[in-house]
């Protein structure tokens, strides 16, 4: 009689470990409430050393709350006020934050430590400001007391002012998204003393830069003119990433009198390609702030990068690797609906690194999608592709869970994009492919050989229909690898 409860207990335990998974066994999602009538337009997010969540709202205020288990019961207080469209934030400690707002990079300090900031220091206002509503500027700390700042371009949907800050360029003013004021469309470096150095150019609306734990600098950009689809770039000093308006501020590189009217081949030759192309609509429509996943507190994806979608209810996951000395890799969805809202602009991990806070906003840019949500790791790895790597002949997929040996579906197609002055761009030369071989290397690893593997920004879109040994379907089913270079060894 004693054996039966024991057996039931064992069965129950088994089902929790390897049985059918619900989404909530892997990640839960909750929406967090702000004080009554406060517009939840999240411009920037971070945590301070007291474990409090710091939220810079786009109208003016920086609010702080200790995270509560009940997402409706955060006790908010105001830390700072008066900021114009706060866009990026580095929380230095409990008493200090650095915020890139519309007009400047501002250090905000609570000098008397009464909980309310009383000192707003201009760290840098060397980049121009045309008055156009579209000119936001994200930041990422450089690890040495300075910052990389990303002053975005202006939109033809808005004007410039008669009186602007910085220099005005008549040539830079032309086109769809334009760089009429100094260093718009650049990433600039501001050192600890506030000295600004232009770093790299060619961006349209790089609404998110990241200096990761490995010392690499990254930025997404927004699909549009000169961005056929959402790109994700590895940034290096001196490089040009494709949007020519910013070249009017390049004193070293002479691209004729009018960089907007150069032969496409010339722009193509100057451009550093994206490490990852995120096919439009399928994957991402507007890249938000990238963030690196903690090593082992947030599921099986430690070290990879998440890239939220400001214009869709999803967060992409990037699987990067170095091939022939350059970064390239694949993208998929970490979250695609399932309770996640749109407007996914900013992200921050909680101090225990188990929860990802997601700040949302679209106000003034598109359909309202304002809010704050959090995604918490619940301990059970979903059935997913953990990594997708390029091999000499195709791709190697490593799964998070053992794969059922029964045959599944591997739908593969390949295409490319050409950036141009047009808004976005179609998939070009779409070709359906059939993997020549599908090899099971281990219970979690598959290798696909692909006929005629091509380099030079070729996207390989793999759609999978597979189950794990417990019958779980895939967490995400579409994986797109951008082959810039082939693996020769």
């Amino acid at each position: 009689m004693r054996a039966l409860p024991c057996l039931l207990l064992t069965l129950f335990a088994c089902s929790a470990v390897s049985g059918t998974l619900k989404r909530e066994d892997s990640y839960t999602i909750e929406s967090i409430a702000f004080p009554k009538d406060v517009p939840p337009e999240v411009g920037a997010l971070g945590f301070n050393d007291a474990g409090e969540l710091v939220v810079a709202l786009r109208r003016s205020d920086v609010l702080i709350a200790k995270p509560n288990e009940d997402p409706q019961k955060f006790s908010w207080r105001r830390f700072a006020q008066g900021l114009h469209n706060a866009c990026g934030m580095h929380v230095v400690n409990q008493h200090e934050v650095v915020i890139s707002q519309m007009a400047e990079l501002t250090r905000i300090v609570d000098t008397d430590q009464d909980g309310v900031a009383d000192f707003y220091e201009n760290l840098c206002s060397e980049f121009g400001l045309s008055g156009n509503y579209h000119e936001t500027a994200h930041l990422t700390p450089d690890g040495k007391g300075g910052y990389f700042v990303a002053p975005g371009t202006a939109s033809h949907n808005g004007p410039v002012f008669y009186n602007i800050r910085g220099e005005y360029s008549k040539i830079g003013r032309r086109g769809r998204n334009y760089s009429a004021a100094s260093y718009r469309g650049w990433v600039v470096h501001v050192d600890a003393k506030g000295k600004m150095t232009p770093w790299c150019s060619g961006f349209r609306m790089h609404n998110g830069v990241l200096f990761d734990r490995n010392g690499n600098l990254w930025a997404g950009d927004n699909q549009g003119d000169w961005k056929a689809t959402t790109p994700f770039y590895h940034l290096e000093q001196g490089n040009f990433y494709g949007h020519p308006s910013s070249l009017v501020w390049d004193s070293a590189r002479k691209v004729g009198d009018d960089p907007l009217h150069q032969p496409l081949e010339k722009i193509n030759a100057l451009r550093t390609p994206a490490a990852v192309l995120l096919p439009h609509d399928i994957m991402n429509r507007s890249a938000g702030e990238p963030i690196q996943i903690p090593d082992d507190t947030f599921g099986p994806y430690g070290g990879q990068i998440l890239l939220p979608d400001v214009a869709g209810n999803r967060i992409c996951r990037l699987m990067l690797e170095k091939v022939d000395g350059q970064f390239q890799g694949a993208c998929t969805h970490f979250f695609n609906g399932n309770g996640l809202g749109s407007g996914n602009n900013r992200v921050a991990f909680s101090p225990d690194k188990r929860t990802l806070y997601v700040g949302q906003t679209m106000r003034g840019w598109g359909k309202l999608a304002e809010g704050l949500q959090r995604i918490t790791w619940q301990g059970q790895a979903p059935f997913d592709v953990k990594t997708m790597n390029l091999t000499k002949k195709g791709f190697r997929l490593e799964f998070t869970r053992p794969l059922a040996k029964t045959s599944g579906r591997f739908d593969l197609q390949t295409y490319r994009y050409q950036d141009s002055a047009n808004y976005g761009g179609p998939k070009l030369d779409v070709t359906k492919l059939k993997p020549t071989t599908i090899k099971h290397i281990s219970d979690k690893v598959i290798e696909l050989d692909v006929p005629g593997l091509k380099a030079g920004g070729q996207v390989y879109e793999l759609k999978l229909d597979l189950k794990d040994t417990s019958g779980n379907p895939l967490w995400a089913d579409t994986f797109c690898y951008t082959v810039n270079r082939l693996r020769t060894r």
Partner: protein
Amino acid sequence: MSVALRVMFAWIACVLLMSTAGADEDYITYNNRPVGTADKPLILRTFYPDPGLGREVLANHGLGQRARNYRPGKGDVAGFADPIRGIPAAIGVNFGPTLSYCWDTTECRLLYAWQGGFLDMKNYWGGPKSGGRKSFGYIPELAGPLVYLARGSHPLALIDQFAGQHKPRFKSMRLVKNIPEFEYEIGDAKVRLCIVPGKMPMSIEKHYTVSGITKADYSESGYKFKLQRQNDRQFVAIVQGRPDVGSGNSEPPPDYKTDKPNAPWGKALYSELGCFACHSTDGTRGHGPTFLNFYGNSRKLTGANDPVTANDNYIRESILNPAAKVVDGFPPGYMPVYPIADKQVQSLILFLQTLNFE
């Protein structure tokens, strides 16, 4: 006597205002007309309107120019896109109805000041449900009439330096008991400036502390001002604003006589005494009832069952003893006493009669 009284009553009005406004929550909400108070001013960086500032005031700004029209899918098309008037990088501060000002971080200079409300943010922030900005006209609007608009070159003259030789550099904003103090540099000079409402109606106090040079001077074109010096490098400039400073969009000063009561004189008094800060003439609700269709109409009073008619006697009493009758829905003790001559009262009454359009 009347000046001294006015100063006193303005002060009383300020104290009363402080105790009535500025409740528990300070958050910026969906309310597109946020306001601060005298002891806790509201600070807001945003795009600010340019109400007609001259190029000499905005000397350190780049010049935006006309561009070819652009259409998606077509590129450059016929026609031109002109720039709009706006200030890109200013800081605005509101002390409640007594004073709002716009201080610019590029020029390091007070650009303009106004009274009444602060800003109407609707063009920029949109409605709570729509959230859309007004496409080519998203600059917020001033919610009250201008009393100061900067003219000419920078008012601070720094001895040892040529005027206009150095570009000003904005360093910081510090809050001292909630009141902003700006720090900026011009050449070797470090300047700290705190701007607060003055004691006279429409006046502005600018508290300067300068270091790094031997002496600083102050001059202001187009406005009366007084300097209260502590030493060569520390002083208060009290600038007397006035109601007719608006640029292109304001009416010319009225031409009136003062030998006997008349409506133009009343109109001038409405501006000079600062009535406009609380009483609109277009039906807009302010801190006091609007004067549109006011004269001769019935008023419901706080704490009284029977309404009264806004006739000559009622208006006279409301100017000389405003606490006697308070219109329902407006705060008591808000309006200061205006001990003005009977000819002036009568002129105001004649002016109010011109605002009846029913």
